[in-house]
């Protein structure tokens, strides 16, 4: 098993990168604001209070939270299913949560936030249940499972397309939301994702050790007092919760759940003890870079961050396909 030499050094570098990009993100946007003004605004309000404190700052927190949620979710799913192509978006979980949330918003636009969360969660759970049922019934190879997941995902997202087109209330917003974006979000969503993370991250660490033991083989795990099926179910449930809430906050952002755990594995090896926090950090880092670029490429126009992540993620997916040998 590959382990790296200096986990703490890598963690330090990663965290400082996250911090660096988070700060950079404060300076990027449609209106040019000087550094002095921004610092001034942060500590004692002022002219730019709205742009900085109400617009850019919450977005940074959201990008970090949603990215971390997606990365963590991907790490857990890949850890349980042991399929390098598994991730919340390729398994249809994101699309399921997205479809449920869109349905709710179309028919009950003024839905309170907790209801949106619950709806997204149930959508994600149903999609996960469908794909797990198919996987359980047909015992597909990892590749075929990925294919089935993608097809279900396509089905659910054409459901989203359909709802959007039939009810063109605010199609521009909807279009941006479809591909996943942090546009138009504010402080109200921040506690949702961070609250979830605050509960789930300690739990994920608790799972990490057990997932590592699972990696030794099911017999070994049983003899060490772990019930594999129960553990797998818990880890998957956690992953679905994380992915669904991320979708409820930011729409379906593709490929972060796939990429972050892969990068984490390259840097830190296969121990879930390191994999789980590093996937979360990398996910947050990727989304904050994508969001900053989405905002800064051609202001005042706003690209959905999901478009940027799929521009990076799709080539990486192809790279994975080229490398994958166990056909």
């Amino acid at each position, binding site marked *: 098993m590959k382990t790296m030499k200096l986990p703490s050094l890598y963690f330090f570098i990663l965290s400082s990168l996250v911090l660096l990009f988070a700060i950079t993100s404060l300076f990027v946007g449609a209106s040019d604001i000087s550094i002095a003004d921004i610092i001034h605004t942060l500590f004692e309000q002022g002219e730019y209070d709205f742009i900085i404190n109400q617009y850019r700052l919450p977005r940074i927190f959201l990008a970090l939270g949603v990215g971390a949620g997606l990365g963590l979710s991907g790490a857990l799913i890949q850890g349980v299913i042991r399929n390098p192509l598994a991730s919340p978006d390729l398994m249809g979980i994101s699309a399921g949560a997205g479809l449920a949330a869109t349905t709710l918003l179309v028919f009950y636009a003024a839905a309170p936030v907790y209801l949106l969360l619950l709806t997204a969660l149930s959508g994600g759970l149903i999609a996960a249940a469908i794909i797990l049922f198919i996987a359980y019934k047909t015992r597909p190879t990892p590749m*075929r499972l990925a*294919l089935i997941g993608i097809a279900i995902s396509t089905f659910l997202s054409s459901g989203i397309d359909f709802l959007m087109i039939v009810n063109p209330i605010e199609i521009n917003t909807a279009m941006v939301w479809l591909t996943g974006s942090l546009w138009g979000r504010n402080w109200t969503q921040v506690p949702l994702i961070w609250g979830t993370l605050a509960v789930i991250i300690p739990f994920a660490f608790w799972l990490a050790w057990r997932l590592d033991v699972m990696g030794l083989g099911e017999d070994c795990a049983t003899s060490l007092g772990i019930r594999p099926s129960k553990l797998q179910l818990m880890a998957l449930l956690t992953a679905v919760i994380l992915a669904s809430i991320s979708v409820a906050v930011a729409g379906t952002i593709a490929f972060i759940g796939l990429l972050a755990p892969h990068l984490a594995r390259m840097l830190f090896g296969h121990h879930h003890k390191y994999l789980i926090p590093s996937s979360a950090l990398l996910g947050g880092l990727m989304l904050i870079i994508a969001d900053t670029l989405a905002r800064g490429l051609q202001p005042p*126009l706003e690209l959905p961050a999901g*478009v940027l992540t799929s521009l990076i993620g799709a080539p990486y997916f*192809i790279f994975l396909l080229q490398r994958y040998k166990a056909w």
Partner: protein
Amino acid sequence: MPLSIRHYISLLVVPILLLLTLGYSLIAWSSFPLNFSHLYAYLFHFDNTSIEQQILATTRIPRLLTGMLIGTNLAVAGVLMQGLTRNPLASPSVLGINSGAACFIALSSIGIHILGDVSSLLAAAVGGVVSGGLVILLGGFFSDRANPLKLVLAGIAINALLIGITRAAVILADERAYSVITWLSGSLANIDWQDWQSLWPTSLLGLLIAFYVAKNLNLLALGNDIAVSLGINIGFTRFLSCIAIVLLTASSVAVVGPIGFIGLIVPHIARRLVNNNFLLLIPVSALIGSCLIAWADSLARGIAFPAETPVGVITALIGTPFFVYLTIRNKMS
């Protein structure tokens, strides 16, 4: 191979279904009430002053004809692709040809001219060739042990990439998101005779080539060695089939945008009816494809009447469960 009674019955049923489709699709779901008597009058004593007959002549007839020809094109392209790759999941939408064509059209329409100032048909053709070529290359089609799933997954990844580029390009270029999302889903809503004029010559050429290679594809299905010993030029057959696929797909996407899954579903239905004989498979697929798209378009008009739903959304909703079924059923690789 001799045809059984079942085949003759199905060959009878398909045209009847086609006729019903024609009539229904022409008059159903109009915001201006139409019925069969108007259709009859239009066909046999056309009256220039009747609004109903004018609607039929200027919007309904071109829409139906264009839609059916596009269904034909995509279905035949699907038959050719499945025959060529021997992969039951191959089709223009799955292997990225649709989205490649759409992406290049979008790029050229916002002013990024990759080949200079070109027509949308040429842009679509180039896009289809580029993305199809990429998918085939990356999917390892030319490697020793070509894996059908790898080809499909490469197609899906290229699809995701191209759709991302298309959306980004269009959002950056202007903010008419609604028309873009409608066009990207494939819609027959604004078809007129001009679209038909730009569609039929390339489609006809593509269909003729498809018929021409049908016999060779039959022999190719027996295996490369047998085909060579029977005097088939494999490379040339493949080349012609690819030309036909590109012509058929590109002309369709240039007119209505990418419509998925017709090319995937129809060949499977047709193979149930007439087995693997390409000489019959191509015309039967063409008929079923045009029927399917006419029904899907009627549904697209009716499902949220009076608003129009892109027909591509309907075909995706029908097609993806079918795709899952095929993936589960086929014990490939």
